């Protein structure tokens, strides 16, 4: 594949078009309480049971910043190699909606807590650096539920006031695949840091996707459309593909792109206009007078920096060095914190080469089949180690191990027990094997003679006969050794 072919371009009737994408990811801060109140942030509670007077905007209530959320944002900034702003300001973003009790969202506008940073992506064609524009903290709104009643809307304020980090990328992404890699890497970094659980089903991570197109080679950016609130990577990819195609068709037919906000309709796989630039809200941002500007202590930043956990990029380097992994293997094994931990646990006592192959191969295949995460797998690190150890100690062959794993991935049974109950141990007793071999050689005198007169290929026949007689359990290495000796 040439470099040129790797480029994601849209072939229009009048030429090739490049897609330019920027992401605004909203990541829920991992924190027990909300950004400005002590209410719980636990997911899945009964509606309106995690709502304080502050969250529901009662008269005279005042926000008080949750310092833990500030630290989480700083940690995330450090993980993104970003500039931490020691001075930042909370602003009010004013608009009316039933699930926005204050009538404004407390956010950060001109002075965010984190400035420019970067993320390195490992793509099939090599690495690519994506710029981070900024990261700021803001409150989430509540949830309007329109489909419970034909004429009423219900409002659940459990999410109201939950801390979000909005992470804005530069328009450096060029394809749905890159967006996929970017979101996964960003999520991975935050999970390593413990600053966001990255759970997209529960809405902990969602994104506004900015898409524009331009003729291949053009330097100027095209007019962009913002696709709001997309909550899965797959939908992001679908929305981008659709939206880019739509824009190309419009431009090629001589029309122009209106800067607007669009929604992605999952069922129809299309984006459609939500509001135009003219109808855009005037949010009337201004500094929240209830909160003083945030002045971060340099010492706090230094402390957080010192205690930062090992992040995917560093871990990758270490894996390559310590375990002699290829860059490709290391990438896969550090892609998620849980996977890297699984791997390191298994290789503590077991063979590295077998471990990486089994994890990247059979284990991942089983996770994919069942659509579960590594922490949900019935094959625990202990059981995986046991399986690998039985292979390296010669108790079972690699082929038999596959049979054992088939049972393990379904039942979670211990490999040793499976091997024992099914009698899968290899026959590794030389005397026993010699007996079998002697009988086969005696029964096939003609073939022995042919072999001895130069028909080397018959060696495989003898091995096959031994395996047949032993029910496939004969230790192949031993069989080879003995056969060679006897056929001399």
């Amino acid at each position, binding site marked *: 594949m040439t470099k040129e072919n790797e480029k994601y371009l849209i072939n229009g009737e009048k030429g090739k078009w490049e897609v330019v994408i920027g992401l605004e990811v909203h990541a829920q801060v991992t924190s027990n309480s909300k950004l400005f109140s002590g209410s719980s942030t636990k997911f899945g509670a009964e509606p309106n049971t995690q709502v304080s*007077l502050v969250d*529901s*905007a*009662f*008269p*005279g*209530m*005042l*926000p*008080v*910043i949750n310092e833990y959320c500030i630290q989480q944002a700083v940690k995330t900034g450090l993980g993104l190699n970003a500039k931490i702003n020691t001075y930042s300001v909370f602003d*009010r973003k*004013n608009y*009316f*909606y*039933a699930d926005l*009790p*204050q*009538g*404004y969202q407390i956010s950060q506008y001109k002075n965010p807590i984190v400035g420019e940073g970067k993320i390195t992506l490992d793509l099939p064609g090599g690495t690519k650096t994506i710029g981070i524009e900024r990261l700021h903290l803001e409150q989430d709104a509540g949830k309007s539920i329109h489909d419970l009643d034909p004429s009423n*809307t219900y*409002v659940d304020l459990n999410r109201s006031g939950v801390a979000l980090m909005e992470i804005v990328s530069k328009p450096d992404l060029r394809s749905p695949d890159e967006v996929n890699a970017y979101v996964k890497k960003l999520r991975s970094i935050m999970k390593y840091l413990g600053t966001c659980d990255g759970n997209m089903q529960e809405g902990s991570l969602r994104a506004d996707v900015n898409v524009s197109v331009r003729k291949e080679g053009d330097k100027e950016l095209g007019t962009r459309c913002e696709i709001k609130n997309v909550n899965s990577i797959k939908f992001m990819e679908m929305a981008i593909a659709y939206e880019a195609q739509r824009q190309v068709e419009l431009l090629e037919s001589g029309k122009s792109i209106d800067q607007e906000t669009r929604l992605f309709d999952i069922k129809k796989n299309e984006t459609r206009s939500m509001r135009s630039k003219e109808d855009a809200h*005037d949010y*009337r*941002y*201004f500094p*929240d*007078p*209830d*909160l*003083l500007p945030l002045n971060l202590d340099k010492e706090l930043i230094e402390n957080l920096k010192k205690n930062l956990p090992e992040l995917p990029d560093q871990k990758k380097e270490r894996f390559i060095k310590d375990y002699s992994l290829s860059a490709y293997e290391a990438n896969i094994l550090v892609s998620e914190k849980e996977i890297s931990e699984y791997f390191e646990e298994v290789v503590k006592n077991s063979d590295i080469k077998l471990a990486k192959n089994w994890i990247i191969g059979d284990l991942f295949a089983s996770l994919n089949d069942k659509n579960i995460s590594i922490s949900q797998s019935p094959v625990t690190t202990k059981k995986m180690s046991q399986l690998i150890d039985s292979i390296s100690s010669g108790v079972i062959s690699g082929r038999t191990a596959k049979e054992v794993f088939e049972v393990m991935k379904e039942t979670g049974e211990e490999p040793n027990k499976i091997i024992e109950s099914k009698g899968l141990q290899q026959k590794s007793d030389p005397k026993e094997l010699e007996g079998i071999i002697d009988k086969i050689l005696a029964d096939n005198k003609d073939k022995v003679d042919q072999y001895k007169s130069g028909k080397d290929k018959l060696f495989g026949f003898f091995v096959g006969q031994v395996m047949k007689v032993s029910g496939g359990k004969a230790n192949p290495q031993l069989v080879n050794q003995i056969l060679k000796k006897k056929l001399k």
Partner: protein
Amino acid sequence: MSDITKKSLSEIVNLIKKKEIKSQEVTASFIDNIKKDKKLNSFITNCNEQALEKAKTFDKNPKLDTLLPGVPIAVKDLFCTEGVKTTAGSKMLENFIPNYESTITKNLWNEGAFLLGKLNCDEYAMGSSNETSYFGNVMNPIAENTVPGGSSGGSASALASDLTPTTIGTDTGGSIRQPASFTGTVGLKPTYGLCSRWGIVAFASSLDQAGPMTKTVEDCALMLEAMAGFDKKDSTSINKKKENYSKNLTDNIKGLKIGIPKEYRVDGMPKEIDQLWENGKKILKESGAEIIDISLPNTKYALPTYYIVAPAEASSNLARYDGVKYGFRSSKGNNLIEMYENTRSEGFGDEVKRRILIGTYVLSSGYYDAYYIKAQKVRQLIKNDFDQSFKKVDAILTPSTPSVAFKIDEKKDDPISMYLNDIFTVPVNLAGIPAISIPAGTDNNNYPLGLQLIGKALDEQKLLNIAFAAEKKINFKQNLNRWWEK
């Protein structure tokens, strides 16, 4: 005992502490006065029975080592009071009963006081005459059909007419000091952040400050002591040690320097105000202070700055009154937007709507820089003026208001003329510094007039001391014919 309700708060506290009078007698006397009032309209909610019950409980086991033992206090209806209706003078909150208590009122109750009632005020504290209240005009006890000032008009009226021994108000641009001046009482706007804003219905967050309204400077010191204190629930609260303002109160102000800003001599100001100002200077000089002419050059920009900053914040603060969660909701409208429009059109009065519109306008994109940002810059200049002056002087003496109390309806339809009433008080809020208004005398019609003393941030003790010294020499006597009882 001679009429207890005419006594100062400090006198009442002393009598209760010496067990010469019971809380129940004190409370019953004030309730008598409240019941006799037919015209002032200073109360929105009476808590007569509840207060008598509290007094009874107090008398059973009097805890006397507090600042306000067994004292009934009516408060401005902007302070949220647990289980008692809190309206902010608005139809929007006509039936709103908080299940929480504001920090300031809680502080008072912790010092032995209890709630006597909720006092009328301009709607959401927006007004200078108490004419914007949904619950009707309040009258000034000095004369019928005269405004008590605003927005803490109910507080000033109730205090001056002996319906409560002391009270608390809030001051965003003069809402404590102007009504104090109009009613011949003492009112203090503390340093921004000295008194917690938690549980006070917000008007303009960067300017709002609760403060005491009292009959004497000594009472004022006592009340401030009870109210002030750090509150971690208010991020703008100042974390500092509590002070004993009442214990440290002294009239020895020898050697203090008092600044007289030339910019406070405005065109059309009545001669009497000028005379009282001159008299104030004379008195402070006699008390050993030195009088120094100073300049606060940006004073003339204070009012326009205030009328950008305050409405901007208010437009956002009042967005929560949308009919969704609590308070008034219009029954008209077929969708969310119409429900909002009708609720807010019917629920808010004209002055509130005017300020929401101004505030929304000055924050709009395209106008933000020209208005809001510029106003913030000017605000800093005004603050700098004061900072410069306080390098030279300990306090600044000015009139509290450019006129005496006016007639009801006199300025109602002329917002600019109404706003001009706050010309001497708003610079203090913009600078976040403390100021006190004390009665300085009367005009020819016997209408009271106040003098304002402005101090640097957290210099309340010095302000109270100067006010205490001045009060002694001025010896102002309230002389009311209690027309409202007839």
